[in-house]
């Protein structure tokens, strides 16, 4: 290793973020590769290395004979300063190759407030930021991930987007790229983009023209190239048992956020909480089979040396054979000192029983998400949980020996009244009372975590006005005054950050200039409070003559064309509108997982179906 690097690495915090060589890291000889791809994650190593999607793609791409995938994460600010001072380009972890020398650089759009990191990483890689400024020598810049369902704020920076699940699509992308490169890159960049655009799930923003009304709303988004569909529908994997799963995930040296085996038990969730974007964009529900899961666990334990397995999904309690799965895994592996964790548990005593079974030590506490403080509000958001459900669940938890419970809520929900905010505090005290009833003690500990609702595209609330910063801060202050109790620790999110998240969640292409300006002004790692500078963002908006309130505080009329109108997640707008109306009249919509279809449109549009072993039985 060059001496320069040793000096740099000796100065920065956590140098192991930048040196790779972890167990199961894959190195392939570049001279034998046709497609050299980078999986770039716009956050630090510990966050990015925890991402399941990237673990899957790393595995699938490197299993291809002529494709190599390497990783890069956002360098922390100290490392950025070192790279800039030494004028060194950003390189991949596996081979130390500058990103600019690879064929395709893919970014994960995990979160709107990491967009400045994408720009910063491109700049550190010495690659032109604007797609239009990149020439034949530069890599293709692509992006995917949950925020891709409104890709427009990044449309001018990215060559193409991957909409939906990439397991199958990404190898098609690599093949088409390899074929084009083998043939001597006929037609240049434009031609490869045309070929990509023909794949279902690929969106090439340069091929779509956006026109605006005088008031700034979108008039139309039209494909300007015949290779492009008017609406790009997401890709999904119909049978999860049939796709490759990363049974040899990288085992990091550093302790990462999810430092354990992540076993995805199913994808999708159709409980239909109206605020939750994941509940719409990942439809339909598709379970992996018990047999497949058991086999995966054994392989992953053998290949990693981890001794903790997390059964992940959007709502683990909903897996049809969960009890059986947990019991079998416990029987098979607990003698090897292996433990199981169950994130995202439902609020009921069944879930508490399960948690009891897997969590022998009660120290880590239990988390429940009632989401709203009153029944009326929970009806609006379609959270099918009653106060009684919560009472039963916490009673069971306290009886089983837990003394610490964490409750998740949101404020700023549509049609919210002051009594709904007060309801959060009332519920918190009720939980503490139950603790005292059950244990006879007054030493219960409760964490109340309150985030601010951000309306997201492709949800029934995509039309609603988001609360202003002032409104949110008033609600937070109200809760601060109501939750003054030494047994309660109350935390909440920065209202300004949620506000900006809201701007980019429902933003249009014109925001590219704002993003670029904010980055020029030094914005990066916006999601890290110590690096979030709201005034720089305000200046970036002012410099471009745009008003953030236009994107957030405006109730959109039913007929408005959204900036993401040409991106489809399979759920129809008509369904979302019906759900919005149901919200305003506080009507419940049942889960289609084991009940009747509520006609959201996903299954017919994507020629797919629900896979749930409880349903077929």
């Amino acid at each position: 290793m060059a001496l320069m690097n040793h000096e740099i690495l000796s100065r920065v915090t956590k140098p192991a973020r930048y040196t790779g060589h972890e167990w199961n890291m894959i190195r392939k000889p570049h001279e034998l590769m046709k497609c050299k791809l980078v999986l770039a994650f716009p956050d630090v190593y510990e966050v990015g290395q925890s991402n399941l999607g990237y673990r899957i793609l790393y595995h699938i791409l490197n299993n291809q004979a002529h494709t190599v995938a390497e990783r890069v994460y956002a360098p922390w600010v100290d490392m950025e300063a070192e790279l800039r001072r030494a004028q060194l380009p950003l390189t991949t972890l596996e081979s130390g190759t500058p990103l600019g020398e690879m064929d395709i650089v893919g970014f994960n759009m995990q979160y709107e407030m990491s967009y400045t990191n994408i720009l910063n990483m491109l700049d550190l890689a010495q690659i032109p930021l604007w797609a239009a400024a990149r020439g034949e020598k530069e890599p293709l810049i692509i992006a995917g991930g949950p925020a891709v369902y409104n890709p427009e704020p990044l449309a001018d920076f990215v060559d193409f987007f991957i909409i939906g699940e990439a397991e199958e699509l990404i190898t098609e992308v690599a093949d088409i790229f390899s074929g084009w490169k083998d043939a001597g890159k006929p037609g240049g960049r434009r031609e490869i983009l045309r070929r990509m655009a023909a794949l279902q799930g690929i969106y090439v923003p340069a091929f779509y023209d956006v026109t605006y009304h005088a008031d700034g709303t979108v008039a139309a988004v039209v494909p300007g190239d015949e290779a492009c569909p008017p609406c790009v529908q997401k890709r999904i994997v119909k049978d999860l048992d049939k796709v490759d799963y990363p049974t040899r995930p990288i085992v990091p040296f550093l302790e990462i956020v999810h430092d354990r085996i992540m076993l995805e038990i199913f994808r999708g969730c159709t409980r239909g909480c109206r605020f939750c974007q994941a509940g719409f964009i990942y439809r339909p529900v598709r379970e992996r089979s018990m047999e497949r899961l058991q086999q995966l666990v054994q392989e992953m334990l053998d290949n990693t040396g981890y001794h903790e397995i997390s059964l992940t999904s959007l709502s683990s309690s909903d897996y049809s054979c969960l009890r059986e799965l947990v019991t079998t895994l416990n029987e098979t592996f607990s003698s090897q000192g292996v433990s199981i964790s169950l994130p995202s548990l439902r609020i009921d005593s069944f879930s508490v029983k399960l948690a009891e079974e897997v969590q022998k030590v009660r120290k880590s506490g239990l988390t429940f998400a009632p989401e709203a403080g009153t029944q009326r509000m929970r009806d609006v958001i379609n959270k099918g949980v009653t106060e009684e459900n919560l009472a039963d669940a916490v009673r069971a938890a306290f009886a089983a020996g837990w003394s610490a419970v964490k409750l998740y809520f949101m404020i700023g929900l549509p049609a919210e009244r002051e009594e709904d905010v007060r309801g959060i505090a009332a519920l918190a005290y009720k939980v503490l009372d139950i603790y005292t009833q059950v244990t006879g003690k007054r030493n219960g500990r409760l964490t109340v975590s309150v985030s601010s609702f951000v309306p997201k595209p492709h949800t029934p609330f995509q039309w609603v006005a988001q609360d202003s910063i002032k409104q949110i801060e008033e609600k937070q202050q109200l809760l601060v005054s109501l939750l003054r109790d030494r047994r309660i620790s109350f935390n909440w999110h920065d209202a300004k950050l949620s506000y900006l998240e809201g701007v980019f969640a429902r933003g249009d292409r014109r925001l590219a200039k704002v993003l670029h300006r904010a980055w020029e002004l030094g914005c990066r790692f916006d999601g890290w409070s110590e690096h979030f500078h709201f005034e720089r963002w305000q200046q970036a908006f002012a410099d471009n003559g745009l008003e953030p309130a236009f994107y957030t505080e405006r109730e959109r009329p039913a007929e408005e064309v959204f900036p993401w109108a040409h991106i489809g997640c399979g759920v129809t707008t008509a369904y979302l509108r019906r759900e919005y109306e149901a919200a305003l009249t506080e009507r419940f919509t049942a889960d289609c997982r084991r009940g009747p279809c509520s006609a959201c449109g996903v299954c017919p549009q994507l020629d797919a179906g629900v896979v749930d072993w409880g349903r077929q039985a």
Partner: protein
Amino acid sequence: MKLRIQFTKEEPVRYISHLDLARAFERALRRAKLPLALSEGFNPHIKVAYASALSVGVTSSSEFVDIELRETRPAEMALTALRQQLPAGLHIVAYRMLETNPAALMKVVNMAGYTLDVPLTQPAGEDVLRAQLAALLRAEELVFTRTSPKGTRTLDLRPFIRELDLLEAAADRVKLALQVHITDKGSVKPQEVLQVLRAQYAAPLREDAAVIHRNLLGVLRHNELLSPLDVFK
């Protein structure tokens, strides 16, 4: 049964911390499917003990660890399995199988040796450097203020320094050999010795850019230097 292993920490893992290394070792042991002894209790952990923590950025050719197994295994077989599972840069160089319960590595290891390859801020003659080293060694006391997250502490480093030699001097860098005592009152880090040399003896060293390697962890008994692998004889 216990295995006492001598291993290296080389370039690929230079920048991992002691905690990272311990985790990597534990995972390798689990992958190797050795019958690891576990502690009692709700949260059982494996019984593994190291001789001495190595700082981030420092390589070594001489680290030691004791691993307790709950069943006896042919040592060579266990070692072969483990070797296949160690990440690049962690390499087993020697081992002993211990039937009896030996004193903990932490208790017996009482000295360490390092080579330090240090860039110079300005050229310095070999004679000048030698004189600076000699002056440091002649000192009765080396007062040093150590800052840690817990606060600052002033201590005398001199008792911990056993030997300090100049191995090579070039125009822009110098290579030193250092031996230190590890006592129940603590020890001294190579970086700290360099810091003292620069700050108190005017040696033009850039200790922040030093390339440091540990080449020795040993047991000094009645002026005889033993390997931790041989202390039972």
